[in-house]
């Protein structure tokens, strides 16, 4: 006992001394199929650098040569995710969920600091419909399709039914093409895990055959510091039967799967996932991955495959070996919140791959994310470095916007929801797009 205590004291002094040295974070992070992770490096105090919100004024996000960006809707109420309906109308989910009570003294301080980097507008708890009837690029009609929802996030249309993932349940509206307002209150299809709701967003997309909904349910903590009992149905993707509302666990160990998309052609489910905090500026990466049925992706016991995270106790050694390494690193703390597959309508350079919306970091001295990137695919797999597609959200310490959901409009445009400036951006090709057949659309 005496010896053990002495050993503890020595190792503790050493680690505190190390912690005081701090960390040198830079802007360049490993992306793609990273083989080796840098060592964790947290420091005594975690680095925090939250966005300093500033109005856009005459500024605009930057887009590549040959594209134009337009604000098609402003003064929204925390727009998050969107879908493009078959007639070209855009539905935008607006809301702000969560609100878990402070568990420790730290939570009071951290939540105050983080709130400085977000919009002060109240979440709308609604769906807004945007319509460009004459196709001139101006969305002249705007209506509230449905109100009184509960922090809606994931959206999916299957035939004539519109599914909305509130923070506590999947609800269903009947939908007829051309509708601008829902015909009535929604029906409840299935409850979703909502106790505490530390990560409240419920990402959702429909399977290619329209039989299932996939729902991303984030963890209830960073790495299990609320105990593991409350993580029972968290950090996983559910597969929900559209007919009955019954669910099964499709894949687990995904800390916060914030956006889901089905790959056109293959029907494969893909996700972007936000990884854990407080391991330093470059560990572990947020990622893009194909989601294997029955797969376990590590949380909370391991990250990036089989790197153990021994902050979690009681620790389960056998879970580390089971952990699947994700396909593609997007960089640590970029906070990927949107993903959608591109189509040929986006032009030759962007025809095959995914767009990823990055909300931007708070847990890092040098900010990263705050942009939309394009991850090129070849033969159905990610191939090559991510390419900046929409930038200019964070310039010289000022933050003008924070991208969330991204949706590819089959007409040849990218819809980007920005929950800081409460704007919906639309990025279009300047040349008239080819009339390519549109791939299956997803939320």
């Amino acid at each position, binding site marked *: 006992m005496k010896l053990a205590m002495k050993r*503890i004291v020595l190792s503790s002094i050493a*680690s505190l001394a190390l912690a005081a040295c701090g960390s040198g974070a830079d802007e360049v992070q490993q992306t793609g199929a990273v083989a080796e992770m840098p060592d964790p490096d947290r420091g*005594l105090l975690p680095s925090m650098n939250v966005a300093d919100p500033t109005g856009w004024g005459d500024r605009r996000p930057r887009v590549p040569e040959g594209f134009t960006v337009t604000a098609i809707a402003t003064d929204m109420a925390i727009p998050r995710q969107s879908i493009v309906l078959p007639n070209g109308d855009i539905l935008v989910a607006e809301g702000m969920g969560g609100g878990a009570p402070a*568990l*420790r003294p*730290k939570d009071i301080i951290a939540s105050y600091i983080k709130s400085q980097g977000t919009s002060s507008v109240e979440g709308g708890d609604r769906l807004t419909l945007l319509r460009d009837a004459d196709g001139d690029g101006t969305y002249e009609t705007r209506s509230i399709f449905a109100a009184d929802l509960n922090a809606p996030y994931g959206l999916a249309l299957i035939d004539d039914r519109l599914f909305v993932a509130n923070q506590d349940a999947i609800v269903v509206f009947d939908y007829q093409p051309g509708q601008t307002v829902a015909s009535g209150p929604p029906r409840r299809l299935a409850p979703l895990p909502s106790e505490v709701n530390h990560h409240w967003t419920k990402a959702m997309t429909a399977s290619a055959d329209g039989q299932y909904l996939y729902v991303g349910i984030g963890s209830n903590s960073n*790495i299990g510091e609320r105990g593991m009992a409350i993580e029972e149905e968290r950090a996983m993707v559910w597969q929900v039967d559209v007919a009955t509302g019954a669910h099964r666990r499709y894949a687990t160990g995904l800390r916060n799967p914030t956006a889901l998309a089905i790959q056109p052609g293959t029907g494969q489910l893909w996700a972007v996932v936000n990884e854990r905090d407080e391991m330093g500026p470059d560990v572990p990466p947020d990622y893009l991955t194909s989601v294997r049925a029955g797969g376990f992706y590590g949380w909370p016991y391991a990250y990036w495959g089989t790197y153990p995270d*021994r902050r979690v106790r*009681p620790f389960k050694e056998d879970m580390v070996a089971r952990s699947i390494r994700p396909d593609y690193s997007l960089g640590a703390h970029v906070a990927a919140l949107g993903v959608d597959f591109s189509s040929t309508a986006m032009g030759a350079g962007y025809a095959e791959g995914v767009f990823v919306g990055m909300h931007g970091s708070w847990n890092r001295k040098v900010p990263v994310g705050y942009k939309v990137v394009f991850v090129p695919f070849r033969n159905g797999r990610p191939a090559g470095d991510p390419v900046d597609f929409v930038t200019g959200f964070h310039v010289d310490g000022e933050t003008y916007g924070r991208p969330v959901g991204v949706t590819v409009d089959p007409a040849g445009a990218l819809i980007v929801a920005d929950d800081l400036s409460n704007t919906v951006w639309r990025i279009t090709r300047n040349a008239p797009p080819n009339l390519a057949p549109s791939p299956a659309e997803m939320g």
Partner: protein
Amino acid sequence: MGASHGRVPAARHRDRLSYRGKTLAIANRPARRSGHLASVAIPLAGLLALFLGAFLSDWAYYRTEHIQWINFAAWLNAGAMVLTGIALATSIIAAVFSRRSWRGWWLVVALVAATFVLGLFGAFVHARDAFATMPDGLVLSLLTLAVAIAANWAAFSRGFRGDWR
């Protein structure tokens, strides 16, 4: 520590003004200065209990890995820090304004300040998630407790008898 029973046990304390039969003055003095002393004594005694609780909670977490213990430890440490901050302020005031300078006050101030610094480190370490708090949190709790005991000892064994009015 029987100073208030009328019969003063002679001049064992140099801060006692008189031993020539002027016991009334001594008997009166605690009433006049007790408010000031209490402003140091109450937080000083209280922080000891809270730091002790924090240490025991840390120890329980280290042994059991049951997450709720580390939440207790973090809050107990936070509560202790509130009292330590108050004790630091009031003991500095006491050291500066005590009528006859008793250099022992500055020892109290130094020990309370050391408690504060260690407790602050402890708060930072307890802000880590789950077992990332260990073993640093446990070690810091123990060190903080030790220094808090020393601060109490320095104050209660001498200062509160004394010469502050």
